């Protein structure tokens, strides 16, 4: 009985307990405590992140002659940490005032907690997988568990969950095909066996495996062009659930892809495979997929008018950075990609939670129905500010560090176009997150929102802690880079040399401790200069220059709709909805085919078919 056994068993136990305790009022706190205990057990394995050898579970199952076993290494630990931390934050958030409110709105917070625990269990099982079969079992559990979370809200959520599951099943089928093919090659599902034959695979086989796995796992990650399901589904998930799913759920795809494509097949093979009639290697193709995954969803996010959708679309885009970083051979890039998983989870969770807090108070996430909340919910504003700085990848928050690593590696590798693509994504992010914070927290406070207050502490504390993480790991990125380096070692890729403040390298350093200190020193100077002037006096928001117009509280003069009108004049017609079109035409094609098959059944007598089939087969064999 080691920590891993304890963790998995406790997790399963939590699922069962929260499943039965759904109706309890204190179900939320119960679930939080259970998740907290799991966190403690995970901390017991913290040695993994600092070089301890992998932990194997002491139990294993054998199905059809194939053993399934589970183990934790630094990579699993890293992902598990993110999973459990975001789950704990979401659970605490949902346990207090929010859960009460959710109950009053007709929801079942206990069910939400159950779904949360189920997801955590599934994810831990996936992260702990010690062979391909357990990986697939974990993978499917994750897929279906997140479906449960998505459809909790009912209504439109059901539709979006359904759409998700179609994508997920398609992905699962691809993965399963890949696994079965591996099995036919090696006769086992062990990682080691596949790794052993991987170098001797033919190029065609490598391409097949890569495409199958990238498609299969990429669906969950929201890789282009399989990304359409994600934003809607996450946006409709109840707030804390969305925070959890948004933070980590999609990253499970990345994890699995890491194991199969990067660890087992190896980037070296991908780089050596040239795509015919082009300059691209297979790796380059994947990197471009990642690049487009950054750009398109980010710019789609810019046009959203619902805060949750906006964030969810960003979640898709940010996944592209991670993949892009991890497809880089040098340690900078892969460290950037891995670190981005952590960073992204930290701020995305907070962002969803803040948006939920806004919904909790105002009952809307429509960016055209909000505004000026900063005076009423200043702490929430601060959280959102910290986290959008992180999301946009601007110093001094942690998002910058990981993106910096990715940029640096792109420069080192000499990939200008990908570099531009990633920067374009960042710029797009800046634009849309400003729209988010502007339309919710800045600008005119609406008359109907004058009386609202900051959210209660039960909701505030998880946000506060997570945003502290966003800041601290930006200030001291070395903390996370330690874990990342161990994960890199576990994956068997080059390990990044780093310091507490960042990276030391002959071709350009990064020392966030200095940078942050100087930055805050600069702010201090700015404040000094500012406060040396005469004291300013606050004025009412209606005391505002509008060309001599007298503003009244009934005037809605908050500039929110079509926020980037000028830009949209130029790029608006580039939004063709091609992917939507593709998806719906595929749907129509299936519908058509389906109608045709039904018609065939209905319009002719089956005897006719019988005779026809008999004639044909006789002709076939006789002729």
């Amino acid at each position, binding site marked *: 009985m080691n920590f891993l056994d304890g963790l998995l068993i406790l997790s399963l136990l939590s699922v069962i307990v929260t499943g039965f305790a759904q109706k309890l009022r204190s179900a939320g706190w119960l679930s939080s405590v259970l998740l907290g205990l799991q966190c403690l057990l995970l901390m017991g394995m913290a040695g993994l992140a600092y070089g301890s050898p992998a932990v194997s579970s002491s139990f294993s199952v054998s199905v059809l002659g194939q053993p399934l076993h589970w183990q934790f290494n630094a990579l699993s630990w890293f992902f598990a940490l993110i999973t459990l931390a975001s789950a704990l934050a979401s659970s605490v958030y949902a346990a207090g005032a929010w859960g009460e409110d959710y109950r009053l709105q007709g929801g079942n917070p206990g069910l939400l907690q159950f779904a949360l625990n189920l997801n955590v269990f599934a994810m831990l099982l996936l992260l702990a997988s010690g062979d391909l079969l357990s990986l697939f079992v974990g993978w499917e559990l994750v897929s279906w568990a997140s479906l449960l979370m998505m459809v909790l809200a009912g209504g439109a959520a059901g539709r979006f969950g359904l759409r998700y599951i179609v994508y997920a099943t398609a992905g699962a089928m691809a993965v399963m095909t890949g696994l079965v093919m591996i099995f036919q090659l090696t006769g086992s599902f062990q990682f080691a066996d596949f790794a052993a034959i991987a170098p001797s695979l033919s190029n065609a086989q490598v391409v097949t495996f890569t495409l199958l796995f990238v498609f299969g796992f990429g669906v969950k990650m929201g890789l282009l062009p399989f990304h359409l399901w994600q934003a809607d589904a996450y946006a409709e998930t109840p707030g804390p659930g969305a925070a959890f799913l948004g933070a980590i759920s999609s990253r499970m795809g990345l994890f699995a892809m890491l194991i199969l494509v990067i660890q087992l097949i190896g980037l070296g093979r991908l780089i050596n495979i040239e795509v015919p009639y082009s300059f691209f290697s297979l790796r380059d193709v994947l990197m471009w997929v990642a690049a487009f995954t950054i750009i398109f969803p980010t710019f789609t996010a810019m046009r959203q008018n619902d805060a949750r959708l906006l964030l969810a679309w960003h979640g898709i885009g940010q996944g592209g950075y991670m993949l892009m970083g991890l497809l880089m051979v040098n340690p900078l890039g892969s460290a950037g990609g891995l670190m981005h998983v952590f960073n992204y989870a930290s701020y995305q969770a907070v962002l969803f939670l803040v948006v939920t807090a806004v919904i909790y108070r105002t009952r809307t996430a429509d960016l055209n129905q909000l505004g000026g909340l900063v005076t009423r919910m200043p702490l929430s504003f601060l959280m959102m500010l910290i986290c959008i700085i992180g999301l946009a990848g601007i110093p001094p928050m942690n998002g910058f560090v990981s993106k910096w690593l990715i940029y640096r590696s792109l420069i080192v590798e000499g990939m200008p176009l990908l570099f531009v693509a990633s920067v374009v994504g960042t710029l797009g992010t800046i634009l849309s997150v400003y729209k988010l914070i502007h339309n919710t927290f800045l600008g005119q406070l609406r008359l109907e929102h*004058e009386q609202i207050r*900051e959210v209660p502490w039960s909701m505030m504390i998880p946000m506060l802690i997570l945003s502290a993480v966003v800041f601290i790991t930006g200030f001291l990125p070395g903390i996370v880079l330690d874990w990342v380096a161990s994960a890199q070692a576990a994956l068997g890729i080059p390990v990044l040399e780093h310091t507490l403040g960042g990276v030391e390298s002959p071709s350009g350093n990064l020392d966030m401790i200095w940078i942050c200190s100087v930055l805050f020193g600069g702010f201090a100077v700015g404040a000094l200069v500012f406060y040396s002037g005469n004291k300013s006096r*606050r004025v*009412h928001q*209606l*005391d*505002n220059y509008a060309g*001599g117009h007298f503003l009244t509280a009934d005037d809605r003069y908050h500039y929110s709709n079509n926020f980037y009108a000028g830009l949209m004049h130029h790029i608006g017609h580039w939004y063709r909805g091609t992917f939507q079109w593709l998806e719906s035409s595929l749907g129509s094609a299936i519908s058509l085919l389906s109608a045709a098959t039904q018609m065939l059944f209905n319009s002719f007598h089956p005897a006719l078919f019988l005779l026809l089939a008999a004639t044909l087969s006789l002709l076939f064999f006789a002729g």
Partner: protein
Amino acid sequence: MTQNELEKIEISTQPKRTNPLANVFDDLVRFCRSRSMFMLHYCTGCGAIELPPAMTSRFDMERLGIQPMVTPRQADILLITGYVSIKTLKRVILTYEQMGSPKYVIGICSCTVNGGMYWQSYATAKKLDEYLPVDLYIAGCMPRPEAVMEGMQQLMQKIKTGEADSWKKYYSHYDYYLGNQQQLFGNNWQTPTDIIGEAESYQLMGPQTLGEHTKILQQVQKPLEPLEMKL
């Protein structure tokens, strides 16, 4: 209270500070103020047409540090360049109140002095300084750019010496100005700027800041407290 009485009231200018360094500092600030005048030309009438020549290469106001600005927040000088209809006057007052002090008002053209050729019109205000404290009039119909420049230089001189402090009068005699405004606009008249509050917070209250007219205002006005941050 008539205009005459108003003129006679001594505005309590800030006493000269005893610290010589502070005096030098005050002088420096005043000098800078006089050499950096951002003007909001609120183009009410025909007079505005005389400003482009004053700004461009023939006379080049920028030599003197005068720049046009487009919002009252940024501006120091409010130029009123022609007849002020009652409807416009409301906006002029709003704009004036939104400017940051020290602020100066220049009335250009005869219309701002006495109504000019619209003296018998029911629709235009006649004496601008009943509603706003005017530092300087530049009469004429319309005054030539030279006159505008001359006026500007006079104002610079007044700022440099510290004479131009009519803006304080607006705070310290708000009741008077408000009374005149109410007479034209009715008792429901209210601007979004809380002049009394400002006067209080900058210690610019005078003997006649409050009075019967402000009492009316305080009765009818919609509250304009700033939105405080609430935790």
